[in-house]
């Protein structure tokens, strides 16, 4: 298996390379540059020209790309002009924030969606099933920011149950339990909103899978053994129905990364999604390119993770 993992990592390299080239060229095609935003009557156009020159924006794009790549290989992903920081520093903390947010969201998502999907599939066509399906569509139809804002207003401000912005309390001492708790507490509401919004896909797929699984011959075999219904579900139907969900786990995670853009903006949560929008608006090429590549890398990692999980869960698939 390790051979496969290593091989997959090697395959990633050309993929990421192509991706970086693509995004770099596209980013350069965007009108404006990081310094456009600095224009005020008080800024000196000559100075801005000088800075553009210094930043190499007048070089041909392939020179810029080669320079950028060369540095990237040494771990230097360039400078963010809109944040005035090395990109690596800038993304570092935010990537971690988004990672925690996604992780908690995924956990909550599955905690919520799996039971619902299983119930809907098991009690297919009952009132319970219909309500769950109905719920899943309502959730899907509600725009992210509407649900986000309403829950923020209600649970955050009106009821005061959750913090309303930021990732950690300013007074929490780093390294203490209180700090970790504060981080978690700040994550909770956005992660819950995130999880609720993501349930639809999982519920739908799981429900369909369970309904399909129920008619499988091996389920009939199991029932013919005289196994109680509950056990038939837990041992035979459920596990088999989870396969496609497991297959999409990596995909789900990367989808969450993309969806983080909305949630992070609403909850004032500093993460990569929010950063990306800012970088686009600020034409912060190095940040855009690095972020896209990071997301690409994470996606690849996610799909590898999916495959590994699948090979563990499904004996028919062995990667070696």
């Amino acid at each position, binding site marked *: 298996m390790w051979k496969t993992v290593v091989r997959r990592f090697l395959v990633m390299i050309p993929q990421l390379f192509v991706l970086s080239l693509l995004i770099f060229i596209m980013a350069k095609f965007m009108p404006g540059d990081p310094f456009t935003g600095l224009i005020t009557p008080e800024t000196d156009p000559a100075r801005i020209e000088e800075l553009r020159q210094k930043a190499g924006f007048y070089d041909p794009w392939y020179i810029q790309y080669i320079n950028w790549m060369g540095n990237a290989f040494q771990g230097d992903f360039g400078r963010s002009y809109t944040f005035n920081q090395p990109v690596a520093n800038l993304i570092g903390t935010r990537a971690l924030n988004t990672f925690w947010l996604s992780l908690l969201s995924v956990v909550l998502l599955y905690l919520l969606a799996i039971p619902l999907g299983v119930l809907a599939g098991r009690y297919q066509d009952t009132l319970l099933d219909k309500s769950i399906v109905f719920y899943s569509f309502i959730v899907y139809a509600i725009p992210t920011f509407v649900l986000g804002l309403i829950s923020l207003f209600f649970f955050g401000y009106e009821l005061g149950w959750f913090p309303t912005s930021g990732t950690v309390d300013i007074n929490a001492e780093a390294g203490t339990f209180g700090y970790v708790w504060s981080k978690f507490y700040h994550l909770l509401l956005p992660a819950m909103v995130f999880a609720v919004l993501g349930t639809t896909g999982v519920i739908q797929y799981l429900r369909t899978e369970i309904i399909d699984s129920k008619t*499988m*011959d*091996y389920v*009939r*075999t*199991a*029932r*013919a*053994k*005289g*196994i*109680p*219904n509950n*056990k038939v579900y837990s*041992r*035979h139907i459920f*596990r*088999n129905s989870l*396969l496609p969900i497991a297959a999409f786990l990596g995909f789900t995670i990367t989808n969450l990364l993309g969806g983080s853009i909305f949630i992070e903006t609403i909850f004032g949560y500093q993460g990569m999604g929010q950063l990306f929008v800012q970088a686009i608006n600020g034409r912060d090429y190095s940040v855009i390119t690095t972020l896209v590549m990071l997301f690409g890398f994470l996606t690849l990692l996610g799909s590898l993770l999916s495959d590994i999980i699948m090979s563990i*869960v*499904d*004996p*028919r698939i062995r990667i070696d």
Partner: protein
Amino acid sequence: MNNASELLTISDLHTGFSIKDTYYNAVDGVSLTLRKNEILAIVGESGCGKSTLATSIIGLHNSNKTRVIGEIKFKDLNLANLSEDKMNKVRGNDIGMIFQDPLSALNPLMRIGDQIEESLVYHTDLNQEQRKARVLELLAQVGIPNPTRTARQFPHQLSGGMRQRVIIAIAIACKPAIIIADEPTTALDVTIQAQILDLLIELQKETGAGIILITHDLGVVAEVAHRVAVMYAGQVIEEAPVNELFNNPKHPYTRSLLNSIPQANSNAERLQVIQGLVPSLINLPREGCRFAPRIPWIPAEAHEAQPALHEVAPGHLVRCTCWKHFYFQSEDEMGGIVE
């Protein structure tokens, strides 16, 4: 044949499916008896209700959309209206079931050993070690060469024949009094088919279980069955000991079925077979002889108004009276018949 040897008595069983709030009977008034040490074959074309009959016995139908009326007497129980919990005590324990397709009848994600062991968990008091031992014993019993290794394998690692053996092992795990085998060999190669049938016969001799063998393959029937019931459109139309049936078929349908088997020694004459298909459930004639539409050249007076099973010889039952007037059409007469 006294009462004591009767394992299972089915009386006037109706199994209906709900379509648009109306129930349509796929099994319509079947009465059958299974005795100890007996292999009872149920034959018929696809859609004649034989599989439904099997699922009705073991209760694997959907209680919401299916209605079972009648009696399936097993020991002191009526399986037709047993609660799910009580039924679970019978399934796998007293009645084992063998399914048609060994490729899909095993859970792909579970080890073979675990799948066999499952029924032991619910039906026996054996502890884990004993169960493991029993699993190996069963695997050996069904003729699997390396039980220890096989027990640890997953279904996809076994061949079709091996899987069918595993399924048989599951069916006999708790030494059931009755085994229902629903087309157990249809999906297998001919050589494997023979092996599996041999295994069934052997097992039956060992355990003395009654076997209901559901099949459309008359060759199989001739080889293993003791008694045969022929089903058409939800009804048993003829029932007889195997030799009697093959030597002296009465019902037009049975005769047609038997005619469809090419005989090695017969001249290459055209087989005399009745054309047409089993009517769909919804279009089933509710009155009169259900086979009548397929033999329109037989006058209506030949049929009974309420066709019943008549004993024509000891243990040989035939439905309706049309058989007395039946003849095969000559080739000239055929052609204009649809259904």
